[in-house]
């Protein structure tokens, strides 16, 4: 709603203006009503044009209502905008409000920014910790070339780090307000990467996603989920991988299909079995699906495996749409 420049922005000034206008409209009307009540006895008193007076009075009343309307509706608007922020549809409380409320909104926005920065810093620190451990782990792994036990423990530590870092980041993404990631951008960038990494396999990747389809969450997390699914598909596909996206109510659905051997239905369930967390999954299974499931669930989404129309595996990822 555009602010009406000819009216004061202050809540108090508007209340005052509204009250004065309303009273100014009410007075002539009351006066006329009284006149009508007593006109039979005092015909000579009524000399002015009634119609014009009535119209002028109604106009004044209307102006009074308009002056009061804005401050009152702005509260309802504020409530709607706050709800949007909480749902993650917006990152800030937008709009212009009467100056008393505007001050409150500005403070609120500052608080949101501050909190977002704190979360971002905490995630960055968690990342630094995780990645700071990786190089010493790499060293340890080289030093322990002759010891399978040490190698196994290093692998476990790596999984723990990746698992908890992914969770910390995803949880923080939930706290990042108004995050929105285009499915097409993420899928296209990943397809480019996969074609390079799996260059010798000669697999083609088709991405079919409308530009407006978006995931309500961070780019890093969508890349992680889609990346694992695509990498998996490229490893198993014979010649072709497809990524298709569609909307289903409040969810965006992403299907990653390949024309590889697929997975036996009984094994499909096992791969996604509850309780098999990424950090507990057997080393070397290399499937990366557990982390996809974990991330999807943090966002209130899901992952399901099925048979693809191409013949291989279809992974269906459902995520909140933005």
């Amino acid at each position, binding site marked *: 709603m555009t602010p009406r420049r000819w009216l004061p922005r202050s809540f108090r000034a508007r209340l005052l203006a509204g009250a004065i206008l309303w009273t100014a409209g009410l007075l002539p009307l009351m006066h006329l009503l009284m006149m009508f009540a007593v006109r039979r006895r005092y015909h000579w008193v009524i000399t002015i044009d009634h119609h014009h007076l009535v119209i002028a009075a109604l106009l004044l009343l209307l102006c009074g209502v308009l002056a009061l309307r804005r401050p009152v509706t702005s509260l309802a608007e504020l409530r709607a905008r706050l709800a949007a922020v909480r749902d993650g549809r917006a990152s800030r409380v937008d709009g212009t409000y009467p100056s008393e409320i505007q001050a409150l909104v500005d403070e609120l926005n500052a608080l949101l920014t501050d909190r977002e920065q704190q979360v971002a810093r905490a995630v960055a620190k968690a*990342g630094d910790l*995780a*990645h*700071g451990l*990786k*190089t*010493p*782990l*790499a*060293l*340890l*792994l*080289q*030093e322990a*070339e002759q010891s399978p036990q040490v*190698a196994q423990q*290093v692998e476990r530590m*790596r999984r723990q780090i*990746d698992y908890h870092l992914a969770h910390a980041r995803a949880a923080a993404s939930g706290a990042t307000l108004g995050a929105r990631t285009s499915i097409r951008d993420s899928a296209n*960038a*990943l397809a*480019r*990467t996969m074609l*390079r*990494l799996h*260059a*010798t396999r000669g697999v083609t990747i088709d991405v079919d996603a409308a530009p407006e389809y978006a995931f309500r969450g961070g*780019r*890093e997390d969508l*890349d*992680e989920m*889609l*990346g*694992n699914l695509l*990498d998996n598909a490229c490893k198993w596909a014979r010649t072709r991988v497809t990524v298709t996206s569609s909307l289903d109510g409040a969810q965006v659905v992403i299907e990653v299909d390949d024309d590889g051997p697929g997975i036996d239905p009984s094994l499909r369930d096992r791969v996604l079995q509850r309780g098999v967390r990424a950090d507990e999954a057997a080393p070397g299974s290399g499937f990366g699906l557990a982390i996809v499931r974990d991330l999807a669930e943090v966002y209130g989404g899901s992952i399901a495996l099925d048979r693809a129309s191409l013949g291989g595996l279809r992974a269906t990822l459902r995520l909140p749409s933005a």
Partner: protein
Amino acid sequence: MRVLVVEDEPRLNEQLAASLEEAGYAVDRALDGERADFLARTERYDALLLDLGLPNVDGLTLLRRWRDAGIGVPVLVLTARGSWHETVQGIDGGADDYVAKPFRIEEVLARLRALIRRATGQTTPELRCGAIVLDPRSGKVTRADAPVRLTSHEYRVLSYLMHHRGRVISQAELTEHIYAQDFDRDSNTVEVFIARLRRKLGAETIETLRGLGYRMECER
């Protein structure tokens, strides 16, 4: 084949270099971004191992600079951040492959071999030229199925020539690709290695094109 290892953790850098040398590569080392930048611009490498988390200049910035400058050497990125998001950035920045830390050295070696193979247009893991077969995976050379024992420098010369079969390789190019930077090159000249290789593999294996260089011509 000559490789540059860029890794800021000295011990890991040392380990990588040692493993690569053992696998038959001439290895240069850089511990920070500036040194890596200098070496990549002045020396000729067949591949680079690049850690992304470097002090001074980070690996991704270096990589983009090199690609912008037209330096097309194959780059295998080593990274502590194994996320797909970062992989996308690395590949878009010009990396050819990715290994996440902590890694097994065999994995690094396998990917490096594949990278060099791709960059030189080879399709099979084994390199074959007539009766001579060089397997970069084991570092073994056979002639008519009989194993041939080569010194590390002889192996590097043969490996470079076989990766570039059919192409004329100048003596200067060979020199650039078989020695690490700090190596005293005077006492080990290319001619000596070629002569020894001919003795071990047969005089006809390596052609000399006077004034141009050497060539391995094989019927494929």
